[in-house]
């Protein structure tokens, strides 16, 4: 079994603290390129900015397996300079405006420090206090000397932390997937040809993965992502039946979401591997949401897909929480699965 060593924590910290808002993923891309180059047979950055890595298998005609993780995160874009250090902004990707007021952000390539403010409670009326503030009426405050340009990206300023069995950070969605793919490349089994896509623009519509899959033309694909857990207790004493996933219960294998019905052959295969290797796993509850698998599945003449996610609480907020054990079990489930993959997996019974 693979373990999570100090180096991997350091790498995940670096990945999480980098800014990589959809469409401007340069910071994470540079880290990825540096990590993958010593291990890859081929590396290229495609037209949209995704990093595409090939690790050849041995033998004739090895199964071509695409692993995808997205490098981008939700964040903000500066859209207007109001002068005096105030900047109007818009959300990039799905962000709940209720998460925003009172948060520290970093803006632009230089990570200029800013804050999203709101009227203090002393001055707010009763009606203002009972309704959410809209993004239109928020500003990023950089102070009178703070510089930003229209189109600059911004993200939460939260720094990565390890707290006991947990990690806390912005952008665990999906730097944890990025870290896992890099580690899988370092331990790539020889029986398959690995096509790794560190893709761009997932948060705004699975865009990078779509063209990456067109390029690779794989036999099958696994999207490695991070999914919300809503596993808090129900304080009225009812059973929580809509948790999506639970922290500490292992990698979440997908069965269906709004973009994909995961291929039942791949779902059963992953489940069997987990049981055989005694790796804790859970099924993500079928429901809304989507991963890059939705786009990959529909490229060219079709690709069998499944998604696997590390669960985390408080998705798309300034700070998410994940468990190190879930990270480790996800890495091992995928590693064990890759080692056992053969063409038989894709026979229609």
């Amino acid at each position, binding site marked *: 079994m693979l373990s999570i060593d100090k180096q991997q924590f350091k790498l995940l910290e670096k990945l999480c603290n980098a800014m990589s808002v959809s469409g401007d993923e340069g910071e994470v891309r540079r880290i990825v390129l540096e990590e993958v180059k010593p291990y890859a047979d081929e590396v290229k950055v495609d037209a949209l900015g995704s990093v595409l890595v090939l690790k050849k298998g041995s033998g004739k005609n090895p199964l071509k397996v695409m692993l995808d993780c997205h490098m981008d995160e939700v964040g903000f874009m500066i859209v207007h300079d109001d002068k005096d250090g105030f900047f109007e902004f818009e959300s990039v990707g799905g962000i709940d405006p209720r998460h925003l007021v009172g948060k520290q952000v970093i803006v632009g390539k230089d990570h200029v420090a800013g804050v999203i403010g709101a009227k203090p409670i002393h001055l707010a009326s009763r009606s203002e206090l009972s309704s959410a503030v809209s993004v239109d009426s928020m500003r990023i405050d950089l102070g009178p000397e703070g510089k930003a340009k229209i189109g600059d990206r911004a993200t939460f300023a939260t720094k990565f932390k390890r707290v006991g069995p947990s990690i806390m950070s912005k952008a665990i969605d999906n730097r944890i997937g990025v870290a896992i793919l890099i580690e899988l490349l370092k331990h790539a089994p020889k029986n398959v040809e690995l096509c790794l896509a560190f893709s761009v623009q997932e948060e705004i519509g699975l865009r990078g993965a779509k063209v990456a899959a067109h390029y690779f033309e794989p036999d099958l694909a696994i999207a490695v992502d991070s999914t919300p857990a809503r596993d808090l207790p129900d304080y009225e004493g009812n059973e929580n039946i*809509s948790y999506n996933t639970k922290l500490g219960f292992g990698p979440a294998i997908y069965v269906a979401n709004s973009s994909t*019905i995961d291929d039942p052959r791949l779902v059963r295969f992953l489940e069997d591997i987990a049981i055989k290797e005694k790796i804790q796993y859970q099924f993500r509850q079928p429901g809304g949401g989507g991963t890059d698998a939705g786009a990959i599945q529909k490229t060219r003449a079709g690709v*069998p897909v499944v998604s696997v996610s590390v669960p985390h609480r408080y998705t798309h907020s300034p700070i998410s929480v994940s468990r190190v054990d879930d990270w480790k079990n996800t890495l091992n489930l995928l590693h064990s699965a890759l080692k056992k993959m053969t063409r038989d997996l894709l026979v229609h019974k």
Partner: protein
Amino acid sequence: MKPLLKTLTETFSPSGYEDEIRKVITKEVKPLADEVRVDALGNLIVRKKPAKGAKDPKKIMIAAHMDEIGVMVTHVDSNGFVRFTGIGGVYPRNLPGGHVRFANGVSGVIGLEPTNQPAEIPPLSKMFIDVGASDKKNCPVKTGDVAGFERSFLDLGDKLVAKSMDDRIGCLVAIEALRALKSTPHDVYFVFTTQEEIGTRGAQTSAYGIDPDLGFSIDVTGWGDTPGQKDFEVALGKGPAIKIRDGGMLSDPRIVDWMIRTAEKGKLPYQREVLLGGTTDAHAMQLVRGGVPVGCISIPCRYVHTPAEMVDINDVTNAVKLIVAMLSNPVSI
């Protein structure tokens, strides 16, 4: 035709889980086809090659989807009750009291949480499947398991009723057209597609793989001939409907002309269909690669997406005749 339709409609086949129905259809078409294969997403691709010496054969794709709506388990609670979500267009008002069957053969009934507003239809989240279990441990299904609706085939003479006429009736028309098509000047691909109900996904990828010159889908459409139905001219028994448009596609006028010309020449009844909502596999086929001229032949169907979908056998046989006539002669569009 009716015994085959009974088998087709009673076979389990929720979207993404089409293995059983694919086996049934494969058995039927294998002796009739020149080539049968299954692609990456499970589409069954059945080819009838052009007759020897055929000039300028067109590659024609005809799609009928094999999948049906269904449900999927989201959670089994501590008392063994099964919470679920829909696969495809599952409308809560059609569910209470219904029966479902899982791939592993387990059956269950759909129950409702009590409500103090009995006139309102509760959402799926207030429903559950009772499979007769008493706790989580002895419940024979788990999160992610898939079930289809259960209802036996009903023969009312000309009118036929089943839980999955959408779109097993299209599959039947495709099979019977293939059976009746002795020879064709075209390179014909009958595609029994997967995952239509959740976004015409199988049609998109199979059309990419086939790269047809033109094509059409065979699917059900709505009806305007029961009490209270308004503003939709299609009725059961008046012939297959030739689609002009639906919610996701404008049929290529050249394909519409081809269909109408052929129907009139053969003195076959047909109806013109203008559907405002909903769409078919043709929607996806139209937009692959550099684009494909497409249309759709619809079988009028009452009570779509309920367990009692009704069609008229005469519309079915006339659709078969129309398609055979279309495929038997050269076409230029």
